[in-house]
């Protein structure tokens, strides 16, 4: 069990969902993968498939059309999972908060664990954000176990 718990923080696989970002934060998320930042150092892989992921990176404003997608992607990530909202848009809606088709913040739709501010959020901040999220795994595991017992 200890081995497994230790491994969790060493191998967080992320799935990135762009739910209406302007691409600014998007490309910064991708920039994290590139040689200069190389988040694979921490075992982070951009896995692309929610069913394999541990961490959901959300960028952008939520709108009624992608809200259901966001929810679906979130549901398809097995526990323990962590959600990181990246950028002003994902945290609160940013400059677009007042638009008619914008839901102000990802946390209105799914529980968010870490907020990464910035417009666009810098790659360093994103790395910090994921690392911060990893510290929540323990708590999440307990939640998961409780859920399993509940079933």
């Amino acid at each position, binding site marked *: 069990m200890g081995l497994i718990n230790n491994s969790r923080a060493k191998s967080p696989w992320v799935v990135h969902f762009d739910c209406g970002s302007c691409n600014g934060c998007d490309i910064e998320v991708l920039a994290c993968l590139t*040689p*200069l*930042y*190389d988040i694979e*150092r921490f075992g982070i892989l951009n896995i692309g498939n929610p069913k394999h992921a541990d961490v959901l990176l959300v960028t952008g404003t939520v709108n009624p059309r992608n809200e259901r997608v966001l929810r679906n992607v979130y549901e398809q990530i097995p526990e323990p999972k962590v959600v*990181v909202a990246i950028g*002003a848009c994902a*945290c*609160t*809606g*940013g*400059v677009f*908060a*007042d638009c008619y088709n914008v839901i102000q913040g990802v*946390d209105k739709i799914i529980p968010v*664990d*870490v*907020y*990464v*501010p*910035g*417009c666009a959020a*810098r*790659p*360093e*901040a994103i*790395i*910090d*954000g994921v*690392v*911060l999220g990893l510290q*929540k795994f323990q708590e999440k595991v307990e939640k998961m176990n409780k859920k399993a017992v509940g079933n």
Partner: protein
Amino acid sequence: MFGMLSPILKNGFGKPATRLYPFEKREAFDKARGQLEIDIDKCIFCGMCQRKCPSTCLNVEKAASKWELDPYNCVICGVCVEACPTKCLSLNKVYRTPVYVKENQIKIGKPPVKKTAAKENA
């Protein structure tokens, strides 16, 4: 045929380009825009910053001498800094760190000095 062969071999024998953040941080650029700071003592709660902000993330309440920033809504454009008549706003070079819980940054200043108050009364 294999065009990428030489670049990758070069990479392979060279040193990785990776900057080992967080163990190795680099100097911020001179012009870097990090986070918004206020010298609340200088603020006169004129509300100029609030009106100019494209993201409506500032809230200035003159009556309560309150200057409130939603840092998770701020897009770090620096318009408020330019607009502020007393130059009490500034952008530092350190970007804001991620958090678990969003909180607004609230600064309560001294009530505006009499001079301004007097002007307003007049």
